């Protein structure tokens, strides 16, 4: 059994350190200790560590010198492997487990994985399969195996190149590192990991980075990081380190002295030019530029002198030998409670306030689009699910599409954007939707494979729409749960589309339903409709009805009806203006209502869809124009808002007194809940899933579809009864808090996922579980 010492070097990053330690509780591989080497700190770092007394080895480093700090950690380590991670990063779930497999190869001395910067605004791959030359030139990301090497070699006149790991995610066999004397403390901050790469190569040891086992990085500010982010007073440190590196490693690898000297000149020249350019662009004052130039000279002089005159500042052989002789065992970091720790938000350290009795799940949600880039129905729902599942303590990964691949953490979830290429399923090129959907589904599956490997996801949740999860469902790699959102086949039927593309898309959606482990309709009506549309049978044990939820409005935003009010009464309609939404029935009912309740006024919000449902063809007008033409006298009492923003929509809900949406069919009817959220009574039809949302006589009224008379009667009845307006509104608000909140929804989803994972595991197909050696029994099943 391979044991690890995770070494964290930190100065004044208490908040980040707290996040990292919380994240380490969730590592799947339990055989590790944590050594935190604290520099000259001024913040609450030691206070954070006090909470881990007995579980974390704390060492002190007298100065802010990363190499020295790394060596202190190395000397204190007891594990077979020392794994370095930055204090402002969190590892993927299977980080150590993957490393353990790699280090089963006795010849391997060092390795490391990807580093992903997960800023929401500008996520990027910081390091992947890096290489470095003997003259301190870096290629941090190789897209193809040798591309970077070729380009770099061409541009650098034949310097030696070596595989390089990034300090945020690198691991070494402790013995190998000690035998080399650890890190060279001349490097205060930069290039120490490159130096190790060069020295490993020089010593003939095998090391290589891999393109898996990522750590998620949120580079925090520090004194040293100013070197990279700004032209600051510490910039010269880079020059100092680079000069030293070029001389030491250039010589060791046979570079000619003239080559090294030229390289040093290039370094200084490059930086001076940068200062000059900044001064010219007025981003740097002339005095400041001159000062930077002088500091540059200081850097190059210090680095050159160090390189030529000083011996390497590495661990003394005797100390290294002593460390190697130790027989002390590691002090395990994880305890019995570790597997029950909820997820932590790596961006702000927030942890949900839940006490778990079962280990949290690791869930992958699929959504073609996702906020903040898009806010369509599926995107919103997926977003709310992610938020809710986070609040329940689960780790959520969302797969969505974008122009480039990236990973960011957003609002409770790791959001992996994938760019899918149209390089498969060429046979279906002529069937546009099918062709795209198949390629997308396959690209999602490729990413899912990596998430299984690295992040130990246990289940994939896919919307039915465009069968995103079909490839994974067919592969059987993980259980797939399917959300029965309005699907392609239903839309095609609605629009009378009978082409091959629509037909095959519908059939693939059916395949997804058949092959999915679990089905998640939002209402019984949705389930019935799907069974009818696709002609499938769904056994009750593989189906859970999960009503959608929303974010409850804060109490002070809720506006129950004030029974003492005497002014106008506002009736709100929200939805597309089309036949299916019952707009024609509403138009018929409005005059009757206004006749009986003259102080009523109607607000109609939603895009006009008259061109698509045939209304414009028949009448030559949009719905709004038609109504105003037909009922000129009522025009002042009926306001058409058109499509409104989400903020405006919330204001409309808040300001209305009664909500009405006489849809002929809704699979669920989110609009009713949105109105109930602000304590508004609602009126809908006895159709589809609406009766499962609107409790007739309690939270509002139900009428028969296409019955404008009943509709008018219901509206009049409520508008003339202030007490009902208030009581039904408050009852609706109560339903939102208990049944239709996003956390209640997430709780039901999680319960369904557990069923699906359990069923999949029983059939012996789980690969995504944790390590069987984790401290507590009952942890999700182990790998096969």
């Amino acid at each position, binding site marked *: 059994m391979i044991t690890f010492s995770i070494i964290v070097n930190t100065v004044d990053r208490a908040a980040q350190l707290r996040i990292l330690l919380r994240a380490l509780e969730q590592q799947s591989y339990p055989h590790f200790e944590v050594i935190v080497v604290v520099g000259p700190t001024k913040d609450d770092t030691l206070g954070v560590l006090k909470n881990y007394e007995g579980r974390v080895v704390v060492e002190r480093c007298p100065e802010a010198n990363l190499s020295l700090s790394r060596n202190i950690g190395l000397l204190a380590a007891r594990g077979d492997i020392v794994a370095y991670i930055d204090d402002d990063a969190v590892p993927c779930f299977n980080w150590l487990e993957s490393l353990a497999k790699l280090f*089963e*190869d006795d*010849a391997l001395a060092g390795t490391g994985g990807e580093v992903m910067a997960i800023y929401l605004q500008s996520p990027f791959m910081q390091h992947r399969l890096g290489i470095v030359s003997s003259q301190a030139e870096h290629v941090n990301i190789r897209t*193809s*195996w*040798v*591309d970077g*090497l*070729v380009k770099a*070699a*061409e541009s650098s006149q*034949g*310097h*030696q*190149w*070596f595989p390089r790991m990034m300090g945020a995610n690198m691991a070494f066999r402790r013995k190998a590192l000690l035998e080399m004397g650890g890190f060279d403390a001349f490097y205060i901050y930069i290039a120490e990991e490159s130096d190790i790469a060069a020295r490993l190569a*020089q010593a*003939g040891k*095998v090391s*290589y980075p*891999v*393109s*898996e*086992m990522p750590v998620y990085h949120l580079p925090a500010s520090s004194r040293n990081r100013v070197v990279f982010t700004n032209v600051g007073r510490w910039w010269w440190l880079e020059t100092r380190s680079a000069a030293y590196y070029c001389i030491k490693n250039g010589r060791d690898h*046979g570079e*000619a*002295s*003239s*080559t090294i*000297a030229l390289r040093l000149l290039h370094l200084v020249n490059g930086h001076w030019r940068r200062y000059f350019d900044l001064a010219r662009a007025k981003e740097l004052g002339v005095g400041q530029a001159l000062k930077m130039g002088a500091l540059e000279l200081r850097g190059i002089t210090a680095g050159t002198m160090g390189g*030529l005159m000083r011996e390497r500042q590495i661990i003394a052989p005797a100390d290294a030998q002593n460390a190697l002789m130790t027989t002390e065992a590691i002090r395990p970091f994880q305890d019995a409670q570790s597997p029950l720790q909820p997820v932590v938000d790596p961006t702000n350290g927030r942890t949900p306030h839940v006490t778990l009795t079962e280990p949290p799940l690791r869930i992958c949600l699929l959504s073609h689009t996702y906020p903040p880039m898009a806010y369509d129905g599926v995107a919103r729902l997926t977003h709310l699910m992610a938020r809710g599942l986070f609040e329940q303590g689960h780790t959520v990964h969302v797969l969505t599409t974008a122009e480039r691949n990236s990973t960011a953490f957003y609002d409770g979830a790791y959001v992996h954007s994938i760019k899918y290429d149209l390089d*498969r*399923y060429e*046979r*279906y090129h*002529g*069937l546009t939707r*099918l062709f795209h959907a*198949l390629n997308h589904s*396959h690209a999602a599956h*490729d990413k899912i*494979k*990596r998430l299984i*490997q690295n992040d130990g996801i246990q289940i994939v949740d896919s919307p039915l729409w465009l069968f995103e999860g079909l*490839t994974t*469902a*067919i*592969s*059987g*790699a993980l259980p797939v749960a399917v959300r029965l959102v309005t699907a392609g086949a239903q839309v095609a039927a609605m629009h009378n589309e009978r082409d*091959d593309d629509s037909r*095959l898309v519908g*059939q693939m959606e*059916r*395949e997804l339903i058949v*092959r999915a482990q679990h089905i998640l309709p939002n209402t019984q009506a949705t389930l019935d409709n799907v069974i009818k549309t696709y002609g499938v049978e769904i056994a009750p044990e593989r189906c859970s009805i999960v009503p959608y939820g929303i974010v409850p409005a804060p109490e002070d935003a809720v506006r129950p009806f004030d029974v003492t009010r005497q002014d106008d009464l506002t009736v709100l309609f929200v939805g597309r203006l089309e036949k299916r939404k019952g707009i024609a029935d509403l138009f018929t009912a409005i005059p009757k209502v206004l006749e009986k309740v003259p102080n009523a006024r109607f607000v109609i919000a939603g895009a006009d869809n008259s061109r698509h449902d045939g209304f414009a063809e028949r009448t030559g007008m949009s719905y709004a124009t038609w109504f105003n033409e037909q009922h000129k006298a009522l025009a002042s009492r009926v306001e058409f808002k058109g499509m409104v923003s989400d903020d405006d929509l919330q204001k409309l809900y808040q300001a209305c007194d009664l909500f009405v949406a006489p849809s002929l069919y809704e699979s669920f009817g989110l609009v009713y809940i949105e109105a109930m959220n602000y304590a508004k009574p609602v009126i809908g039809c006895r159709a589809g899933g609406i009766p499962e949302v609107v409790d007739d006589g309690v939270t509002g009224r139900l009428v028969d579809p296409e019955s404008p008379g009943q509709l008018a009667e219901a509206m009049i009845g409520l508008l003339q009864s202030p007490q009902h307006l208030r009581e039904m509104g408050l009852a609706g608000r109560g339903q939102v808090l208990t049944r239709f909140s996003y956390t209640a929804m997430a709780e039901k989803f999680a319960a369904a996922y557990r069923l699906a994972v359990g069923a999949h595991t029983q*059939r012996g*197909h789980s*690969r995504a579980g944790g390590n069987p050696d984790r401290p507590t029994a009952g942890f999700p099943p182990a*790998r096969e």
Partner: protein
Amino acid sequence: MNRNLSAQDVVGEIEFELAHSSLSQDELGQGIQAVRQYQNQVRAEIFGLRGNPDPRELARRQFQLNDMLLAVLHQMSLNLRASQLEQRQLAEWVRDRASGFEGLPQPVAGNVQTFERSNVTRSDDDLLLEIQNILRSSKLWLDPDVRPVRVPIIGGLLTRLRAALHDVSLFYTNRLGARQTAINQALCDAILRLAEEQQQLAHARRVDVEDGK
């Protein structure tokens, strides 16, 4: 033609893509092409323009080529291990399907780079050993008989002078050339073996997929 397509056709295509996905040779081909291109360029530079190649330069370029070849070889080796893992899983899948067991696991390893040790066959171990031996043997060059003169700026010149004075240029060129040729030959042999094995696996998998599923 499209009118005749059925759901089963599409599902069959997905299953085929799943089985085929780990065997993509595109990137490998690009990698080998890049190395070849670079080698041609180096050859032209060293032997074409200069009459008397500098042994240090020659060795440097050879090391770079070695690194590139090793990168390709390493990736091929990992791909092969992934393929073997998937092959085994596919065999289980075929077996389960034959016994009417639905909703079954397909390979998940793909191009991932860490695998269960137990899935590595003896031949893989041999290949890895071969890579390691190559790496170790390449270290021999790191102890040259003539050490560089460690004087800033003019050190390289002095080293070259010394080398010229002792007329060792040709000696080292020949010796290093012989060594590197052997290393390259070993790398190429290993790559060829890997490629052959991958092709065999690809063939076996296609036969499996076309036959049974």
